[in-house]
C-alpha cells in the first residue's frame, strides 16, 4: 500500500496526584521523596508539571538510582503534616501492541532467551526478589507452553493471572507474601503484577514492575490510585506492557511513571521522618483525558 502514511493518534491527559500525611506527634525534621512524575519515553511526554506543598518548602526535582525523576521536599522546621500536590499534562501516543511479527522459529527464540549474553544484559529483571519469587509449591499453577511463542505465553499468563486472582482492596498490603496472594486468590494491582512478574521470571523472561497512572472512565480497576502493571522483555521485540489486573496489554491509557524489580523500587512516596507517634497517609489520583488529536 504505497503512499499510505501511518498516522498515530495522540491523547492528552491531565493528572492530579494529591497526598495528605499527618503525624500525631509532630516532626522535627523530615524528608519526603515522591516518585510520581510520568517518564518521558517513546510513547509519552510530559508537557507540563507543577508541584505544591503546603509547608512552603522547595520542591526539588531529582533523579533516583534507577534513573527516574523524583520530587524531594525537606522540612527544616517543626511540622505535623504535609500536603503535596502534583499536576501534570502528558501527551501519549496511541500504541499498537501487536505491531510486530510473531517469531517463526520458536527454538531460536528460546535459545536467544537462554543465551549468556541475553541473561547478562537482562540480569536486573531476571533477578528474583522477595515479592517476585515463585514459591516452590506453586510452580505448576501456570506453565509455559513450548509450542507457542514467548509473547503468546505472556498473553496467556496475563489472562491466567486476571482469572486466578480476584480484585479486592484492603485484604493485602505491601508486605503480603506472594504465597499468601496465590493461595487466598485476591489482591490489588500490585499483587497481580508481582504474580505475573514471578511467573515470567521463573520461565526465564525478564520482567519488571511498572508504576503509573491508568486513565479512568473505562471502568478499569485501579483508576483512582496509582496503578501497577508489568513489562516483559520479548526477544527481538523489546519491552511490552501487560496489565494483568485488567487482562489488557498496556495501551495509551497506561501512563508510566517508573519501573523496578518490584514494588519496593517504585513506592510513590518515601519519607524519613523523625517521630515516635503514629502517622496517617491518604492519597488520591485523578486522570482526565483533555482532548484527542
Amino acid at each position, binding site marked *: 500500500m504505497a503512499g499510505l502514511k501511518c498516522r498515530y493518534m495522540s491523547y492528552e491527559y491531565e493528572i492530579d496526584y494529591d497526598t495528605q500525611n499527618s503525624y500525631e506527634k509532630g516532626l522535627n525534621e523530615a*524528608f519526603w521523596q515522591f516518585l510520581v512524575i510520568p517518564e518521558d519515553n517513546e510513547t509519552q511526554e510530559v508537557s507540563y508539571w507543577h508541584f505544591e506543598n503546603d509547608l512552603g518548602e522547595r520542591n526539588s526535582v*531529582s533523579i*533516583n*538510582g534507577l534513573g527516574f525523576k523524583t520530587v524531594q521536599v*525537606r522540612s527544616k522546621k517543626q511540622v505535623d503534616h504535609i500536603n503535596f500536590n502534583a499536576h501534570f499534562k502528558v501527551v501519549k501516543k496511541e500504541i499498537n501492541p501487536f505491531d510486530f511479527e510473531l517469531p517463526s522459529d520458536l527454538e531460536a527464540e528460546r535459545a536467544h532467551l537462554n543465551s549468556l549474553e541475553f541473561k547478562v544484559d537482562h*540480569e536486573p529483571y*531476571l533477578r528474583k526478589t522477595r515479592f517476585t519469587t515463585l514459591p516452590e509449591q506453586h510452580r505448576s499453577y501456570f506453565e509455559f507452553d513450548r509450542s507457542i511463542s514467548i509473547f503468546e505465553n505472556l498473553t496467556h499468563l496475563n489472562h491466567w493471572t486476571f482469572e486466578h486472582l480476584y480484585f479486592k482492596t484492603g485484604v493485602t498490603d505491601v508486605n503480603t507474601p506472594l504465597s499468601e496472594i496465590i493461595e487466598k486468590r485476591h489482591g490489588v494491582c500490585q499483587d497481580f503484577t508481582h504474580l505475573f512478574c514471578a511467573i515470567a521470571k521463573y520461565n526465564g523472561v525478564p520482567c519488571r514492575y511498572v508504576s503509573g497512572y491508568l486513565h479512568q472512565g473505562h471502568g478499569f480497576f485501579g483508576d483512582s490510585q496509582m496503578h501497577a502493571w508489568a513489562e516483559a522483555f520479548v526477544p527481538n521485540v523489546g519491552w511490552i506492557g501487560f496489565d494483568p489486573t485488567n487482562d489488557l496489554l498496556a495501551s495509551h491509557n497506561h501512563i508510566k511513571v517508573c519501573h523496578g*524489580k518490584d514494588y519496593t523500587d517504585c513506592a510513590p512516596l518515601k519519607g524519613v521522618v*523523625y517521630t515516635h507517634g503514629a502517622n496517617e497517609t491518604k492519597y488520591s489520583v485523578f486522570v482526565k483525558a483533555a482532548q484527542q488529536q
Partner: protein
Amino acid sequence: MGTAIDKTIFSSYVRKEGLFDEVFQSDGEVKSVYQKLLDLYGSRTIEDYVSLNNKAKSSFFNQGITFQVYGDKQSQEKIFPFDLFPRIIDSAEWETIEKGAIQRSLALNHFLWDVYHDKKIIKDNIVPIELLSSSPNYLHQMMDVDPPSKVYNHISGTDIIKHSDGDYYVLEDNIRCPSGVSYVICNRTALKRALFGVFNHYQTYTVTDYAENLLNLLESVKPPGVDAPVCVVITPGMFNSAYYEHSYLAKAMGVELVEGRDLFVENDFVYMKTTQGPVRVDVVYRRIDDLFIDPMEFHPDSTLGVPGLFAAYKKGNVTLANAPGTGVADDKAIYTYVPDIIKYYLGEEPILKNVHTYHCSRPDELKYVLENIKDLVIKPVDEAGGYGISIGNKLTKEEIEKVKAVVKANPRKYVAQPIMSLSVHPTYIDQKESFEQRHVDLRTFTVLGHDQQFVLKGGLTRVALKEGNLIVNSSQGGGSKDTWVLKQ
C-alpha cells in the same frame, strides 16, 4: 638487678614442629632481621617487659582506643590486645606484598567498572553470572555510574597470611569499609613511647603518613568543578565498633567527623550543618555500609544515612569513598576468581597467591566439601569479622553433621578452603606472663586515587590470642602487633 631466678623474655618459649615461626628458623637460630631486636630485648627480664607492656596498654585505655564486640551482652569496651614485641618484614618481602596488593586492588577496580558497565568478564564466561545475580551487594543503582577517576575501591584492606611453605597468600579482600588502620598507627605510637631507643637500631618506614595519603586521595577524587573540596568522615555513631577509628581519621586529616543527621541534601547537593550555617560537602569518606547510606534508595528504615545522598552522588555533586556497590567484588565467592580477574584485566600473573577455594554452589565441589569437612575451613560468603566460620579439624562429630546440614540447605552461601597453617609469631600472653607462638596474619591498606597508588608500609598484624586458634579477627578475640617494614 636480676637475681638467679630472673628469666629472659624467651627463656620459656616453645617452638612447635611444623609451624612457620616468623622469628626463629627451623633449626632454632634467630632470623637475621630479628637478631638486633632479640639482642636488645634479650638482655631484659620478663618482669621488665611486663611492666612496660602494662604501661603501654593503659595508655590505650586512657586515650579511649577501644572497641566493642557486636552481640556481646556485657558490651564492655575493650582495648585491642597489643604487645610490645613487633613483627618485622624486610624490604624484599615487602616489595612483593606491596606490588601484589596494588595489583589486586587495581584488578578489582577494573572488575567493578566492568560489572557496572559492559559486564564483559561475565559475557566472556570468566566469572559466572550467578555471582552477580545472587549477590545482594550488586547494586543496580550503580549501573553506568562513572565515579571520578573511575575509582571504586579507594581504600582496600587485603588480608594476607604466610603459610607453612613460607609463601604469602591472600585470604580475603575487604573493599567495603575496611577498618583497623588506626590500630596500626596507635601501635606504633605506643611502641615508640615505651621503647624509643629500639628504633635507633632499625630503619623502619613511618606509618603516620596514612592520614595524609588518605586526605590526598579524597581530595584527588573530588567532583568535577570543585576547587578546594570539603571532605568529611561519616560514621554510624559512637556505638559502632570502629568509632574510635572514624574519629581518629577525621582528626588526623583535619576534617569533620559527622553522623547522618549532621548532613542534609538539597537540590542534589550535600550540606553539613554548622554553627555558621550550611557548608557544602564534596567528598564523603563513608564508614556506613552501602545499604544504610540513603533510606530513599536502600534500606528505607535506616536512620544512619542521609536521605537524598545517593541521588547527589549519582549526579556527580559529591564523591563517596568507597563507591557504593564495591561489596560485589569482595564477596568470598568472587575471591576464587581474583587470579582470573587479574589476568583478564591486567594481563599479568597474580603476584600474591590465592588459597584454593571450593564453591559449595557447584555440585561436585559441594560433594568434596561434605566428604572432607574435617580438613577444610567453611566460610559464609557474605559475613565479615570472622563470623560463621567453622574449622573442620576443630569440630566434634555432631558439629560436623550440623555444619553439613547448614551448607546443604544453602550451598551458595558457603565456600570452603584447605586449612592453612598461618605463620606464628612470639606473642606475649598475659595470663602466662611469657611469650608463646601465636598465629598471625597481616592486613595491608591500599589507597587508590586519581593517579595515586599507595600501600601503607606496615599494616596490621593480627594475632589469634587463643592457643592454636586460626581466626585473628578482633571480634573473635584477636590481638595485634606493631608491624615494621624495613628500609633497604
